[in-house]
C-alpha cells in the first residue's frame, strides 16, 4: 500500500517540504484496501493549501475519479474519523497529523452487503453474461 521507507526519511521529507511551502500541508491520500467500486488515484502524495476545506477536496476527488453525483465517496482521516466538510486542512493537520508529519487520508465508498450463498451471485454473473 505505502512504499517502505527508511526510518526518518519521511520526517526529513516533511521538514523539507514544510520549509519550502509553509502554507501547505503534506497529505497522503489513498484508496481503501478493500474498496472495489472507486478507481484508484494515480498518485498519493499531495500538498494542500491550509485554507482549503474538506468539501473542496471531495469536489476535486470527485472530478479526478470521474464519479457521478449518485456515487458516494467518504474521506476517513487516520482510519477513524470523517472530517467535517467545513473544516480546513490547517485544523485537521493540527489535530490529526501522524508523528511522521504526514496527514493520512483514505477514501472509500459504501460497503456492499450480501450473505451466505455467494454461489448464486456467481451464477447470476454467469447468467448475465449469457443473457447479454
Amino acid at each position: 500500500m505505502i512504499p517502505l521507507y527508511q526510518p526518518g526519511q519521511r520526517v526529513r521529507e516533511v521538514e523539507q517540504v514544510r520549509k519550502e511551502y509553509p502554507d501547505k500541508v503534506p497529505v497522503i491520500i489513498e484508496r481503501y484496501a478493500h474498496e472495489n467500486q472507486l478507481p484508484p488515484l494515480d498518485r498519493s502524495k499531495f500538498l494542500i493549501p491550509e485554507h482549503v476545506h474538506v468539501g473542496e477536496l471531495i469536489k476535486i476527488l470527485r472530478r479526478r475519479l470521474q464519479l457521478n453525483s449518485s456515487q458516494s465517496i467518504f474521506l476517513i482521516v487516520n482510519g477513524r474519523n470523517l472530517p467535517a466538510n467545513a473544516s480546513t486542512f490547517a485544523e485537521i493537520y493540527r489535530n490529526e497529523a501522524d508523528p511522521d508529519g504526514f496527514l493520512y487520508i483514505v477514501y472509500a465508498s459504501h460497503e456492499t452487503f450480501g450473505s451466505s450463498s455467494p454461489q448464486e451471485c456467481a451464477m447470476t454473473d454467469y447468467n448475465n453474461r449469457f443473457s447479454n
Partner: protein
Amino acid sequence: MKSCTEGKKTDIAITKTNECSRSTEKILNEEKQVNQHIGKVICLEISFLVEYSILLFAYTVVCFLCWLVESVLIPFPRTLASNSLVRRLSNWWKVTDGLESSYSRLLWFRMQHPGYFSSHQNSTTSNSSLRHAEQVLDRVKKGIRLKMDKVLDAYLTGGDSDFPTCESPVWIFGRSYSVNYDIEELRRSVSSCMWITYRKNFSSIGGTNLTSDKGWGCMIRAGQMLVAKALLLRHLNQDWHWDSECRDHLYLQIVSLLEDTKVAPLSLHQIAQSGASLGKPIGSWLGPNTVAQALKKILSSEYVSLDIALHIAMDSTVVKSEIKKACFTTSGHALPISVPPAYIVSTPRPDAKWKPLLLVVPLRLGLSDLNEAYVPGIKAAFEIPQNIGIIGGRPNHALYFIGYAANEVLYLDPHTVQPTVFVSTKLTEVEKAADETYHIHKPGRMSFSAMDPSIAVCFFCKTEADFDAVCSKLGERFLVTPLPLFEICERRPHDWGSASFVSSSSSSVKTSSKSASKSSSAALGFTTLSLGSSSGGSKSTAGGGHSITRSAGGSPSSSVSGRSKSDVDDEDFEILG
C-alpha cells in the same frame, strides 16, 4: 576441415542441449513455484478448517457440560433439560450451517479467481493472490465468530428475550419506551413496522432466471422496509397499528406496492432493475447509498405517485435550502395523466405546499469497524421523533436498524427465506396468513460495535415544521456529541458549491498560481492541479494559471529550489487547490 565442422556441429548441439536443459530447468522451477504456492494456500485452508473444527468441538463440549450441570442441579430436570437440549441442538446446527456456508464461500472464491491456485507468472501476483486468500479467510472467520457469539449469547440469555431487561429506556423510531411498563406498546410498534425478508419462487427478474433473492437481496429488503415505514407514516394515521385482523385499504394498498411481482413499483424486481441502471447488475450486492439512489429513481419517476420526495444528502451534508426548494416546487397534486391508477396512493397532506420528505443521509463512520466515538451521535439520531431508522448492517449482512436500548442496537433482519405470497384483499385464511409473513414481533439486537460503518440515516418529515425540527434538534445534539454524524447548513458553502463554484475556483486558481510563482514550484517539476471545472469560465483562468507557472519555471530559480530539486523532485508531490 571435416573434423573442424564436426566440432562446430557438436558445439551447436551442446549449446542446443544446454538451452534445452535450461528451459526445462525454467519449467521445473516454475512448477516448483506453483507447487509451493498451492502448498501455501492449502496450508492456509487446512489451518482455517482445523481451527474451526476445534472451535466447534469446544462449543459442543460447553453445551454438554451446561446440560450436565442443569440436569443434575436443577430440580425439574426432565422438562427443562429436554427443552434446552432441543434448543442447544438447534443452535449447534446453526453453527455447522455457518461452517458449511464459510466453506461454500471459499469454493466460490476459487471459482471467481482462476489464479487462486495457479498464478505463476511472477512472484508478485502469486504473493498478492495469497494475500487476497488470507483476507477472504479472515473475513469468513470474522463472520463465523460473530455467528457463534450470537448463538452463545442466545443460549446464555435464554434465547427468547426480545428486549434487554434494563432500566434505561428503549428508543424505537424516535419514541422512548420502558421495558418494565410499556412492553406491550413496544411490541406493537415493532410489529406495526413491515418486516420484509428474502422470498423464493417469485416470477423471475427481467433478463435473468433468478426466482429468489437469497444471498444478495438483503440490502434491497432493508430499503423496502425503510420505504414501507415512510409510506405507512405518510398515508396512515400517527396512531395506526397493525394487528392480524387489520384490513385498512390504505395499508393493503401499500403492501401491494411492495409485493414480489414485476409490476409492483417498489418490488424487489423494480429496485433491482433500477439498481442495474445505476451500474449494479441484478443479483450483485448493493450498499445503502445505491439502494437509496435506486429508490429515489423509482419514487421520482412519472409512473409512480406516492407523494413522497426522497432526498439523499451526499457528502455527509444536509443543505436545507436545496431540500426546501425540492419539496416546495415538486407538486404532487396534479397527477400526470399517464399514471396507471394502481400506483397512486393519495391521502390529503397535512401541509398542502410541502411534499412529504424522506431524507436519507449516507455515512461511513469508519473503515472496517465503526468508530466508537460516533455511537452517541447514532443514539442522538435514533432519539429524533422524525427518525425512521437506519439502513446498514453488520459486515456482509444488511439490516434495518429501528432503535436502540442501552448499548445495543435493535434491528429487523431480512435474512429469513419465506415463500412468495400475495395478501391482496386479506379476506381468506391464506391471505391472512400471507399478511402475517410481513410482520415480526421480536426485533433482533446486537452491540453498536458490531455495526458495519457504512450506513444511511433516515428521517421522514411530513411537514416543513418537521424538517426544521429535525435540523434544529440534530444541530443541538451534535454540538454535545464527541463527533457529529454529519453537517447541516443553510445553503451550500460557496467555496465548493455548484452554483457559485466557477467564480470562487478562478480566485483560488489565481492564489495557487501566485503561490506557485512565489515558490517557483514549476522549477521543481511539480504539477499544479487547478480547482477549475471543465466549464468554460474557469477553464480560461486555469489556463492562465498554467501559463504563469510555466513562466515562473522559465525564470532563474533561487538557490533553495535548486537544492530541494534533488531531494523532493522524485518524491512527486502534487499541489492541490
